[in-house]
């Protein structure tokens, strides 16, 4: 999904979402990295997988938990960083 030609990227980083490691680049948002790896954001009350909705900070559908702080954050507004640990259950 990423544009590969004629583009400059930040440093390659690795993060972990629900224990699974994801590759991303500095400057990308957590939501982008999760989408790229097709990681579900959560399951709804019927057990179905849900993704994000607005990708611009308004809907809060993309809330995740950042570890170790436990802080809840919107993945679409949170830049990735190397070694970042994330859980999607809140």
């Amino acid at each position, binding site marked *: 999904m990423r544009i590969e030609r004629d583009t400059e990227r930040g440093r390659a980083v690795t993060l972990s979402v629900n224990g699974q490691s994801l590759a991303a680049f500095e400057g990308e948002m957590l939501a982008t990295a999760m989408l790229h790896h097709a990681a579900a954001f959560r399951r*709804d*009350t019927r057990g179905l997988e849900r993704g994000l909705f607005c990708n611009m900070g308004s*809907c*809060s559908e993309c*809330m995740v938990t950042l570890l170790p702080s436990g802080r*809840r954050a919107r993945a679409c507004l949170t830049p990735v960083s190397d070694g970042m640990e994330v859980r999607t*259950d*809140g």
Partner: protein
Amino acid sequence: MERCDVLVVGGGLVGCAAAWHLAAAGASVTLVDAADFGLGASGQNAGSLHFQIERRFLEQGDALARQAEQTIALSRMAIEDWRGLEAALDADLHVVMDGGFMVAETAEQVTMLERKVEREIREGLRMRLLDGDEARRIAPYLSPSILAAGYAADEGHADSRAIVPAYAAAARRAGARLIGRTRLDRLQRVGGGFEAGAGDLSIRAGQLLVAAGAWTPHICAMANLHAPLYPVALLMNVTERSRTLEVPHLVQHVGRRLSMKQTGAGNILIGGGWPSRLARTADGGFDPGVRPELIGDSLAGNLRAAIDTVPAVAGLNLIRSWTGVTAVSADQLPVVGEVPRLPGFWIAGGGSAFTLGPTFARLVAQAIGGTPAPELDFVSPARFEHLNSFMG
């Protein structure tokens, strides 16, 4: 010119519910709504099913609290109505009736609560007065600062966004004609009935029910009547979903403006009557049709009351706040019934019409159909008839 037995003006909870009951009883019913069904107060509210005497009655002194006792009879009927509503409408309304608390934090509030619960038990409401520890045993999420709580076993909440579509669908199935995006703009008495219009649409109706919420006075003015309902603008807030915090009850406060509950998805809804600011028309009047402005102090005060009552909400993100407009009457009770000076002209509005609306809509439909509903006598518009004694 279309004809019907009853024209309902306003497609909120009250209008759609009344249309359903009327149509189910065999009347030909047309309902018009200026917007889409349920976009007024009925789709903006907190969804509390509160059957205890409301704090807003207690804060105005004893006389009003005594009056509120009369609503308990209505509340008891509402409990039955709500218990049967999902089956009757064949819809999932997220009705939860697992109990509700009204908490007290100070000695003065405890006294207020004791008097209130005593009244309620006397009027036949299933109520218990609990001390703080007893309350926390049932509701461990309550703050250690809670000294006592009134516990109503039947209280709870439902999804305010689901109810109006469910009533509207049931009304249509029963044969009612529901017309959206059609604003009533004229109304007059003709012979024994009424002639009403909205743009190109003209309707002749035998009887007329105004269920237009905060717009009710405006509709009544078209018929040369005063209706003592006033628009008030309120605030609502919702947090992110949480699975760590579980609040299965309705939580209210006897001394502070607060209502809290958790939706099926896990969000905590926080409201309780904090004001927002009504919009104005160009010439300075109030405009209930425009979204009210959020007041920062209300937001802070509402969240403070929530955190003081349920400390764990402090750890959740607020994801949205919104404002809405509802109608309050001159004496805070609903206004439901026939206007004495204009037979066939009915009003149903005001009060906490999420909780009580299903009941008074059912009763007013019954009365319009010709079977008196004495349960509504104390909320009849007749008590304000003096306002209309100068209307020629």
